[in-house]
Each structure stands twice: as C-alpha cells, then as structure tokens.
C-alpha cells in the first residue's frame, strides 16, 4: 500500500519584497551601530558620561511599549490567518495605540533633553543618540501609518484570505521596528564602559 503525504506548502511569510526592504534597512542600522562603536572606542569616557544622562526607565518603558505593540500585531495577523476577521481590527488598533504611545514618550524624552540644553551637537554621543533614535522614530511613524491603513481595511472588512499576506508583510515591518529598538536600547542606554 502506498501512501501519499501531501507536502506542506512552504512559503515566505508576507510578500517577498518586504524582506528586501527589511534586510537592507537592517544593514543600514548595522552600519550605524558599527559606526557608533567605532566612535565610542575613540571617546569612551565622553560616551559613558553622556550615557548616564539618559533616562533608562523611559528607555525600558519604551521597550515594553513596543514589545506589547508587536504582540498585539502578532495576534491580529494570527486572527486574520485563521479567518477570525472580527477580532483583527481590535488587535491592530491596540498595536497602533501602543505605537502612538511610543511617539508620545519620545516627545517627552526629547523635550527633557532639549530642556537640559542637550542637543545633537552637544557631543558625538548625543549626535548618535538623536540620529539613531530619530531615524528609528521615523520608522515608528511609518509603521503607525501602515497599522492605521490595515486597521481601516480590517474595519471595512477588506482583509481576506487573498490579501492576508499584505497584512503579514506590514506585521514583519513592525517587528523589525521593534527589533531595532531592542538593539538600540542596550547600545545607547545600557552599554557600560569596561
């Protein structure tokens, strides 16, 4: 007796192109991280003294905010994949609100820095701090817009089995934004001088 086992269809999550974007974007950040470490090695004391001026609590809260947001987006994508479309908008809205929460938190953090007279030209550490977190913030803004679009589409019952890969691609982008922060947080806020 012969048995035929249907091979499970393997596919790349999301749409293929999003991985080109994610790969290149991560490469850009890798270049910046490498650049940061090279400059840090030249002025360890300045970088350490400047690092201590950052608010680690806010950094930690921001990490939790983005992780929670990512988790909600995962739940939304999972709901869409199993056809539970009614729950998708709720999860996406939750993810979006946490993304907006991150933006608000950053506004306060930047405001405190500027209030204390710290700007991107204060020293090389703060040049990197504002540039890296600023570029990341642009990614968060872009991701929030993406989540808003998918939320509106989900509310209008325009997410279905044919286009769920697009939602998955949006989720992949959002997780990349999360992952970048998870690397930025220790690099800027926690990395101690030996």
């Amino acid at each position, binding site marked *: 007796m012969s048995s035929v086992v249907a091979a499970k269809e393997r596919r790349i999550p999301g749409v293929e192109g999003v991985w080109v974007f994610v790969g290149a974007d991560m490469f*850009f950040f890798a270049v910046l991280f490498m650049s940061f470490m090279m400059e840090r090695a030249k002025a360890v004391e300045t970088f350490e003294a400047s690092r201590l001026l950052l608010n680690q609590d806010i950094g930690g809260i921001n990490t939790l905010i983005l992780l929670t947001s990512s988790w909600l987006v995962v739940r939304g994508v999972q709901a869409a994949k199993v056809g539970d479309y009614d729950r998708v908008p709720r999860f996406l809205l939750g993810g979006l609100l946490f993304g907006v929460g991150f933006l608000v938190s950053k506004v306060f953090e930047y405001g405190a820095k500027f209030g204390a007279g710290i700007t991107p030209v204060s020293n090389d550490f703060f040049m990197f701090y504002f540039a890296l977190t600023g570029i990341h913030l642009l990614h968060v803004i872009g991701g929030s817009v993406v989540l808003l679009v998918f939320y509106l589409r989900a509310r209008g019952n325009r997410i279905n089995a044919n286009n769920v890969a697009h939602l998955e691609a949006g989720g992949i982008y959002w997780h990349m934004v999360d992952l970048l922060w998870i690397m930025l947080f220790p690099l800027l806020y926690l990395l101690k001088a030996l």
Partner: protein
Amino acid sequence: MAAQPVPRQYAMWKLMAWSGPIFFIGFFVMWGLLARNFPPMAASTSAEGMWEHYKNLQMEILIGMSVCIVLGSCYMTFGAAVSRVMRRIEDGEEGMLSNIEMLGSTITCCPIIVACGLWLTGGLLVDSLAPETIQMLYMGAWMIIDLAYMVTSWQIIACSVCFMRDKREKKLVPNYVSWWGFVTVASFFPVSLIPFFKTGPFAFHGLFNFWVAFPTWYIWIVLMSIYVIKAVYRLEAEEKASESVSAGLRGASATA
C-alpha cells in the same frame, strides 16, 4: 475617413531608455573617478585645504564637471522613458504616478546640474578666489545636491508603487526592484543631518550619508535602467505580435 492610429516611436523610446546607462556610467567616471569624488573631500577640510584641492585638480574638475552638467540631462530623458512604461501600467496619460515620475526625474536634474556648476566655478576661478569662497562653493554644492533628496524620493516612490501594481504575470519591473526603491528612499532621510555634522557618519562625506545613501540610489538607477530597457523591447514585441494576430484575423474574415 477614419483616422489612422499613430505608430509608436519605439526607436526614440529605446534611445531615451538607454540614456539611463549613459547617465550612471558617465557620472561614475566623470564625477566619481576623474573629479575625485570617490571619496569626496571631507566636510571638515579647512578652507585652505579645499583651495589646495581645487588648485591641484583644476583640470580634472573642469573636465569632469563640464561633462556632468551635460550628462545630468540624461536623468530627465531616462525618466521620460520610465514614465512611458508606467503609463502602460496605470491609467494612460491621466496616470498620476507616471506624471510624478516624469516631474521628479526632471526636477532632480536641477540640483545635480546646479551643484556641478558650482564645483565647476570653483575650479575655473580658483586662482582669483579666496579659500573661504572656494569652501562656500564646495559646501554649498553639497547642500544643494544632497538636501533636494525628497524630490527624487517622490519619483522613486511613484515608480515603486506603479510597478508593484503591474497585473502582468511576469511584471515589467520585478517586485524586488520596487522594494529596493523604498530602501533607497529610507536611506535618504538621514541626509537631512548633513548641515549639522562635519565629521562622522552623517557628514556629507560620511559612512552613511555618502557610502550608503549614494550607492543605494546608484543601484536603483542601474536596476531600473536594466528593467526599463527590457520592458521597452518587450512592449514592442508584444505590440508586434498583437498586430500580427489582428492582421491574420482580418485576412481570415476577408477570405471567408
């Protein structure tokens, strides 16, 4: 008498598409190699150092920049060819994206040509200008060519969105090129930081704002050139095949 359809000017279309490679090869050689912009002189160089640079490379800069001012126009003609391909995907001449592409590529020429003109002026008048004036010309040209990136970004976004909407089974421009377009746009944003830094990755000669942002754009132009040239030849072949079929059907119905 019914009006005859005007035959498409494929020869001209192909010529315009081939101006893409003329642009990117010409700029690489004349701007990059001959005028020594690989790597560019650092933003932190003193005014006297910049004057020395222009004095030592006067002839190379004069030739390189003169040619680049002429070649800059090829970005516009190439953009026209890309725009025509995009019209086949979207709503004909009414298509918004193909128009943005055309405008974006045309306006992108302006900062390129103006910047090359300023570098050329520095080379031309180096003997009669003070070092600070040479510095102003050199830095000013970089600010213009770099900070106008958003015009080019709109052009690239329009291309990416349009080519991703292509419903053909085998798209005229593959998706990965469109996504690379988004990557290119993303790499442009840190360029906004160049006025604030003379050293480090965000200076105009820096690791990110030169060695990442420029090659990323360059790769996009190369990829887009390859696929747009192929697309024009493919569209011509498809049209010829369609005409042959129509002629065959007309012949068959006349015989019947």
